[in-house]
């Protein structure tokens, strides 16, 4: 495996609790008691989850999610 590591990042300032990411990528996102989204663990996206991560990013109405690549 030589692919670059992808991370899912949630911008706390932008998240308004629509909760779509949690439903589209349940293994990558958790929701706190107030309804805000956070990336699970350190946000690493396993290769088999990359499509779900992409869907979650694309469907955030606030554009609060992004994918970053570790160099």
């Amino acid at each position, binding site marked *: 495996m030589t692919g670059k590591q992808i991370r899912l990042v949630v911008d706390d300032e932008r*998240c*308004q*609790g*629509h*909760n*779509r990411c949690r*439903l*589209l990528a349940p293994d990558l996102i958790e*929701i706190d008691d*107030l*309804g*805000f989204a956070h990336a699970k663990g350190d946000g690493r996206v396993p290769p088999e989850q990359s499509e779900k991560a992409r869907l979650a990013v694309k*469907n955030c*109405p*606030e*554009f609060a999610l992004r994918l970053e690549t570790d160099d």
Partner: protein
Amino acid sequence: MHAPASRLDAVDLSDGQTFARGFPHDHFVWARRHAPVYWHAPTQRTPGGEGFWVVTRHEDTMAVMCTPEVFSSDLVPPRTGGGTGIHDDPQAGKTMIFMDDPRHKRFRSLVNKGFSARSILALETELRRRTTALIDAMPEGEPFDFVDAFSRDLPLQAICLLLGVPQDERAQLVEWVDHGIAEANGEIIAREDFRKLRDYGRDLIRRKRQNLADDVLSTIIQARLEPNEEGSEGGPLTDAELVNFFMLLFAAGSETTRSAIGGGMKALMDHPEQLERLRTADIAETRLALEEILRWTTPTIYKRRTATRDVDFKGHQIRAGDKVTFWEMSANRDEAVFDKPFSFDTRRAPNLHLAFGFGTHVCLGASLARLELRVAFSELLARIASFRSEGPIEWMPSNRLLGIRRMPMSIRRKQAVPN
């Protein structure tokens, strides 16, 4: 394939009366399938006597909302009006929803914090107190109008609380907004009511300046726009800009959630097994149910943009300056995105509805609306044992808002627990 024009012409989307019996779903089911993007020829009712594009599918609606550089909310010269309604509004470029980025972002950043999910949660205790007071005042065992008793007043109290509008003035204000929407002739709010609201707003801002408090209007009175690259110096908002903010936030806050609460109540009465299940739902299930209520009711049903250049869109040649409308209610019933879109299902997941729009203009009040819905339904279900519809809904004759004007129903309270 080409759709027979007569089939499309049969429904005039620029006429508020088309919506007086509810949303014309049959037309949009057909259009999504056979003419997902089409040209709506002008009718006698169409503002400006000018046709407009109609976008019906979820995917295409998202594409328009997410391409603001091509589909503008602002004034697109040589037009002298623009904005997000079919009617060319002279306020285009002067109020936040009728602006594009980066200007829109500069204005929105002034109010974002006041409407953020975190700020809104601070209102919960007070909103719950106000909600239970309204429920306790409902008559029992006899028909009453749910709009009058509950669904109009709760969002109104909430927006007054947040903005800092005196609660004893809210009844007069909402009367102007309601009347203005019902009497509108192309514009969103009829001119005369618009003027009354504007005069009230000017006076309110004058009073506020002398008595600043911890509310959104006080915040924007004290706010300063950032200077920008194009040479604008920034500084405090002008009185005209402050009044525009007041009118936008007040009207949007008072007219929309009302339909979601009323329409949600009706949907739950029509699906009693789902209503009963919601009584014991945990927070995650409750949140899902609220999203389905939002999809189901879609309180604002279309928006318009103006094309900034010639563009090929789904095989159609849209020309610079054309009006382009997209219909969120149609997108929210799109068979390609929602399984059984005409079934009300409080467990639907994921629910990618567009009731709040999407992207840079996504509803500023989404968190407030969700709080109002959560508090309203949790308190209604906690206090009332049975709900009964007592007749059909009466709709507002408006294509802008799927407004519920009247909704007769009756209730039986839960037995009080003996001391």
